[in-house]
């Protein structure tokens, strides 16, 4: 090959290399170079959207593991447990403004998820307190997971409804006493705690018994459906108190498969705790589900230990 021929080939390929480079330049810089109509999106914007989409998918997965138990499948909230988060005023910033938060909406969500709340904001309306999730505050989630959750929650923005999640306190106070206690006096659940909670159960609950048999297969199946949906996130699929959300909780959820613990928990007290929640812990009151549903869950829960 003559020198000049080699140089020619070299120059041709050098020029050819400009084709892919120009393609990349148009893809990545199309917007900055003014090559795109306003409704077109560049390759780089598409990539950014794809990564955002993946983050939302990750957030949806985390929500399905940790959050739906209290905030509902679609963020609609569960009365008496936790407020709706799929609601317009929270996602467009009005709620943040109302409580005096001067930062952005996503920063509010991120901080709330990461740090949690030391006490329930409105124990009269929502008994469960938001646990700490961010691992920088001792929770189980990495920062990128908190970010993914925020992206997922913000993705509700477009279709969010106006929901009144914070009705005025006066009405709620009339309905029942606000069960705020000093932390020192709060009984801890777990084995001994359950007993102290059982000492003075309110009269309507004393001696209550289920209308179903403990080995009724249909009841157990119905109870399992509700349990898997509402309880398994914290108490674990097998009742050992090791659900995915349990890591964030202090005190830890009760181990329903523990025989000695369950023996100390009579049926009526068990029903009372499920109905009214366990004060000083993340266990919310589930009265709103209706007595029938709660009995089914209770029977299913007691099948873990076999204690009737």
């Amino acid at each position, binding site marked *: *090959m*003559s*020198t*000049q021929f*080699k*140089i020619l*080939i*070299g*120059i*041709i*390929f*050098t020029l*050819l*290399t400009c*084709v*892919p*480079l120009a*393609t*990349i*330049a148009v893809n*990545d*810089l199309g917007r*900055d170079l003014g090559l795109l109509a306003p409704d077109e999106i560049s390759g*780089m914007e*598409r*990539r*950014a*959207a*794809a*990564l*955002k*989409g*993946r983050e*939302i*998918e*990750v957030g*949806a*997965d985390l929500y*399905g593991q940790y959050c739906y138990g209290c905030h509902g499948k*679609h963020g609609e909230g569960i009365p008496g447990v936790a407020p709706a988060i799929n609601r317009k005023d929270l996602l467009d910033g009005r709620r943040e403004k109302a409580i005096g938060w001067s930062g952005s909406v996503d920063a509010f969500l991120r901080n709330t998820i990461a740090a949690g709340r030391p006490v329930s904001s409105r124990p009269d309306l929502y008994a469960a307190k938001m646990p700490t999730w961010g691992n920088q505050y001792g929770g189980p989630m*990495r*920062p*990128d*997971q908190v970010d993914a959750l925020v992206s*997922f929650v913000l*993705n*509700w923005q*477009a*279709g969010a409804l106006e929901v009144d999640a914070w009705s005025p306190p006066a009405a709620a106070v009339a309905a029942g006493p606000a069960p705020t206690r000093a932390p020192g006096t709060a009984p801890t659940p777990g084995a001994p705690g359950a007993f102290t909670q059982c000492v003075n159960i309110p009269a309507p609950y004393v001696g209550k018994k289920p209308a179903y048999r403990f080995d009724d297969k249909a009841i157990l199946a119905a109870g399992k459906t509700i349990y898997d949906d509402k309880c398994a996130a914290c108490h674990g699929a097998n009742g050992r108190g090791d659900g995915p959300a349990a890591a964030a909780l202090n005190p830890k959820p009760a181990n329903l498969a523990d025989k000695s613990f369950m023996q100390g928990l009579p049926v009526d007290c068990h029903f009372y705790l499920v109905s009214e929640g366990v004060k000083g812990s993340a266990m919310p009151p589930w009265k709103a589900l209706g007595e029938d549903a709660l009995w089914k869950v209770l029977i299913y829960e007691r099948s873990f230990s076999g204690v009737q």
Partner: protein
Amino acid sequence: MFERKEHPAPFSDKMPVGLQSLWSALHDLRTKEGRARLGKATRATGWQVADDTVRAVSAGMGIADVRALFRGDPPVEKPNPRYKVFTNAFFAHIRPRYYEKSSTKFTHTFGLGFLSALTFFIEAITGLILMVFYIPEQDRAYQSMVKIIAEVPFGQFLRDIHRVGAELMVLVVFLHMVRVYLTGSFKHPRQFTWVTGVILLIITLGLSYSGYLLPWDQLAYWAVTIGTSMAKSAPPKEIMGYISNLMLRGGDTIGQNGLLRFYLGHVILLPVLAMIFIAVHYYRVSRLHGISLPASEEESPDPAVRKQAKERLDYLPEILTKELMWIAIAVFAIVGFAAFSFHAPLEHHSDPYRTPLHTTAPWYFLWIQGMLKDPWVLPILRGLRDFVGIDLVQFYDSPAIQGIILPTLIFLLLFGVPYLDEFWDKFWGRPSSRMGKNRKLGLTIGFASLFLLILFSYFGTPLFGVSAPPAVEIGQEFIPEECVLPPIPLLPDNCGEVRRLGYEGLPAGTYELEKYAAPPPDAAPLHNLLTKMQGRVAEQAERAAQSDVAGLADAKGFFVIEDWQSDLKKVTLRITWTPRAPGDTGAFEKIVYVHRDSAYE
């Protein structure tokens, strides 16, 4: 430039010569002949300055010679200034003045050593730019990858090139070694060059592997966790295993410390080592021994052939232009491939609590994983123990032997190749020869090793020997948690057919798989997918009908697609069966969310 001339000067002779010549120039401007003279002098001076500049830059060649060089003409000045360059210039002095003609034949070397060096430079350049955007911090590393892809112009492209270059570098370095082995180029006097080459192979593997961790995604985290877990079993485990694990991972598991160590290894330690050994290796090749000649010519009985093979081919301009041409072609190929048909994978953020199904080592370490799975040696040793009574099983069956000691021995053997070869020739008292016909044993061993390497790499892939419970495998086939990298480098990864259908291709509904057993001829893609799923489920049901343990009895599949959020769908694959063993739940569920924009390729 500044010469004194006879002219009517208003200045005394004591004036600076510069001013005097300026005056004479001005004086010249007044007459026609003077202007012609001045023009000529200016051109001459200009040429001189330009020529001097070119001489300085090219370290010895004037303009005329540079022109002649690139035109392919013979040198203009005498003595030949093209040789002067090699003593005057640093970058030329590390290149040889000439190559022996036959050593530059393409089919002899395939340019593999050259290509190895080229990929190293490409990696260095793209790597240096990527370092600007990368943060080696466990909570931010993945975020910086996202930023490189989504916000940095040419960011994804650089990453793609860096990845392509890395895979190519391992491949090319390996092929280079194979070529050198097959042509017998490692033989006397190039034994030590081979040793530095094996060191470079190890450094290359180290460079590639240490870069594997940096994206900090699931792929990175688990591939490196598997690899470093091998270091843990280095004997004696309580001392060496403990120390090497601690040194590599910076703790019990890979975390911030491990990431920083791999990062520094990747950007400082290993590149510096590579540069040192490339320098030694290259010096020995280019200045000490030259590239080997084809054996058939070097050892030819015909002196004319031997003489012709050694004819000189000057580096300037023959080799230089050839190299520049190949650089242009190779860069075009790499850039085009990276731009149009390859994207470096980025999986989900690393999660120490979530082990992906079927994690594998990078493809170039699959053979070690294959040895650990071991389809043959262990059964043979067991046979020995049971029938002959020689018990090697308890000795052999440990990760220390299979994951550390055997690979180490293999590399030690590689180092020793030229010396063992020499010993073998001396043992039989025959002259050393590089010709294939005189190296039957060597070539047989070479091809056999190559075959075993490929075979064990195959054993290392998930295609061989591992399987999760059948329902889990079905879930993995259609909805893998992460996109699955193929065991062959630079092929696109497989993200499963559900993700491939994407948001638009998944209309909401509950699909009972039984109803989709056979697709109509013009079925929608979803229908075809459901048929395929039903096929897998039915297969398991059938297997269960024939066996008491295998398969899934009365298996039924459901595929549920729900509109979950704006632009987000929830996809659930549920398989139920009749449990036959205690602890069998009789149900499997795999959930995946699919966003409209999240393109998986």
